[in-house]
């Protein structure tokens, strides 16, 4: 049974996704209900679906000193790091605490497997990797964190969390534990996943990809749209930044049910949610907004809608924002944490884009259109393959549970 935790300050955060680079672009797109999805123009062979592709990744070469890390995923990470003054904020923290006192904890599902795919598409006649692709460090899941730790010049604990679509939600839990134990004074958390054939054709093989833009919680939803994104946050103790928004709690749990289908009763999701509420010292009724996992898969949305109905009153507003960004997989946790933080900061609840014909399973909590209201407490749900569930709780500065 978790005990209430000491809140952690979120002193900087940023995201880059199909709806734009940085916080202002995200807020603008959410306010205008403008989706970032487009017909698939990415995969190496045709595949009829819609994708959440980030503009400008191809044109963003890494600085020459980081050239060995070149690949789409690390370029997307670099795009993300260069928004909202994030690099400067980390540099200031490094000067304040020392490089060895800041952890780097990043989530990713497939990291730079796109580069490994490319290496296989153009093998040498002898069957080996071409010289320019023979860079061992990018052909594994730690590629992202290893690049970012070098780019940010950090020397503390450095870990990749790869639990599919809950990866970059769980990093907040890793960070809180390390700060609580006094191993570090701050943590850079986040996640990056980029479009690649593995996920496009893989989810297609599982018959989980819609041919249309995804429609979370819509009665006619028929699958996900895959997206890509980068997002980061800087976490410190509250006394370092009393006016910053806060991580109030988190919960983690396993379904113990199936590798690629959620538990029909949402058992693991509910355990993670209740664990987060306990750590945050919150009653469900104190939650103003939930950014749902809401992938637009038949099963996820059915299970998650039922969970919202049975736990929360109608005053708690809920929506999925995957109709904007697509499902950014291992980056979904941090992107949607960012949306939850924007909701707190701007008193704004983004509508559930794509739910034009709401599934009757959805109760009165669902915000189908944008709403303006003060948000003191916001949750973010992230559920992954393997039955891996995470829930994060955030609040405005000064909120008392």
């Amino acid at each position, binding site marked *: 049974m978790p005990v209430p935790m000491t809140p952690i300050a979120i002193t900087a955060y940023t995201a880059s996704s199909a709806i734009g680079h940085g916080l202002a672009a995200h807020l603008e797109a959410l306010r205008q209900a403008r989706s970032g999805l487009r017909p698939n123009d990415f995969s190496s062979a045709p595949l009829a679906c819609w994708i959440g592709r980030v503009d400008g990744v191809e044109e963003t070469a890494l600085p020459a000193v980081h050239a060995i890390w070149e690949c789409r995923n690390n370029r997307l990470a670099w795009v993300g790091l260069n928004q909202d003054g994030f690099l400067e904020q980390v540099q200031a923290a490094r000067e304040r605490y020392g490089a060895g006192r800041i952890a780097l904890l990043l989530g990713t599902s497939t990291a730079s497997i796109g580069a490994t795919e490319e290496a296989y598409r153009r093998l040498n006649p002898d069957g080996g990797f071409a010289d320019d692709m023979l860079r*061992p460090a990018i052909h594994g899941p730690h590629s992202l964190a290893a690049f970012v730790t070098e780019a940010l010049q950090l020397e503390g604990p450095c870990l990749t969390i790869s639990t599919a679509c809950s990866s970059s939600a769980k990093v907040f839990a890793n960070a809180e534990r390390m700060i609580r134990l006094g191993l570090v004074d701050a943590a850079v958390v986040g996640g990056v996943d980029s479009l690649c054939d593995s996920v496009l054709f893989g989810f297609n093989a599982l018959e989980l990809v819609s041919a249309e833009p995804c429609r979370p919680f819509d009665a006619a939803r028929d699958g996900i749209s895959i997206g890509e994104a980068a997002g980061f946050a800087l976490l410190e103790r509250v006394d370092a930044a009393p006016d910053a928004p806060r991580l109030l709690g988190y919960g983690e749990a396993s379904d113990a049910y199936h590798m690629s289908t959620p538990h029909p009763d949402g058992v693991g999701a509910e355990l993670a949610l209740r664990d987060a509420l306990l750590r945050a010292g919150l009653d469900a009724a104190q939650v103003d907004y939930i950014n749902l996992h809401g992938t637009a898969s038949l099963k996820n949305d059915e299970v998650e809608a039922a969970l919202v109905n049975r736990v929360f009153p109608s005053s708690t507003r809920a929506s999925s924002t995957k109709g904007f960004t697509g499902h950014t997989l291992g980056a979904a946790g941090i992107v949607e944490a960012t949306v939850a933080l924007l909701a707190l900061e701007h008193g704004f609840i983004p509508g559930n884009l794509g739910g034009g014909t709401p599934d009757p399973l959805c109760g009165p909590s669902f915000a189908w259109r944008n709403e303006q209201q003060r948000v003191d407490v916001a949750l973010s749900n992230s559920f992954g393959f*393997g039955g891996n569930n995470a829930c994060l709780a955030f609040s405005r500065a000064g909120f008392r549970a």
Partner: protein
Amino acid sequence: MKTTNRLLQCCVEGIGLWSPQLANFEALRTVLAGSTPEPPPPRPRPAATTLPANEGRRAPESVLLAVEVAGQAVAMSGRTATTLASVFASSQGDQAITDYMCATLAQIPTELSPTRFHNSVHNAAAGYWTIATECRAPSTAVCARHASFGAGLLEAVGQVLAEQRPVLLVCSDIRGSGPLLEATGCTQSFGCALVLAPQVSTTTLAQLQLTLTAAHPATSLPQPLSSWRDANPSAHALPLLALLARGHGHCLLDAAATLGLQIDLESLA
């Protein structure tokens, strides 16, 4: 570099080990005593008896390896797996599936196998394990290249101390295959597991004291352990495993590219 001297203390209650030469932790003791243990059966796939038979047939090799060592460690600890939180570390995940997927995607992408795709997630072993043991406790899957064991150990010990609960740590990598092998250099399988707990109990085998340090050259190992470590990133756990076999002393592991982990061990068994 400014480092913390914060001391982390936890107890080891169970140890699992599997490689083509070592069927379990006892086999490592035999090697260190100068003898050659009975290896696992030739052309081995780990038995991974925790999995139901049908799941065992479906599971990829990386899952069998992780579940095999996890099952050994939990059995030694005497705990039930159902309530154990778990940390599954692996430098590369399932390299055979990555090789299959990249080769298929380069030729006929629309024929990618859905099962092999969902088995390709880095947390596949965590998923199969929690399903087989009906465990709803938190589980995670992590990596940090050759520092995967050290970084995974730091995460697991962090959970033990922060949550005051026992935690299962698994670190395993299967042998690489196909063109990818040139990049990973992982030429033989290796997996190990520890059950870690916050308090000394009747099942405590050893007590660990961990301190973060600046990066150090890793602890030297006698042959054949040294070659095994070169052949698999998860085998960077061997200095600690050898320490556990010996029962006392200290070792240094990598916890990150620029961070070391000093471990002092006191035997209680």
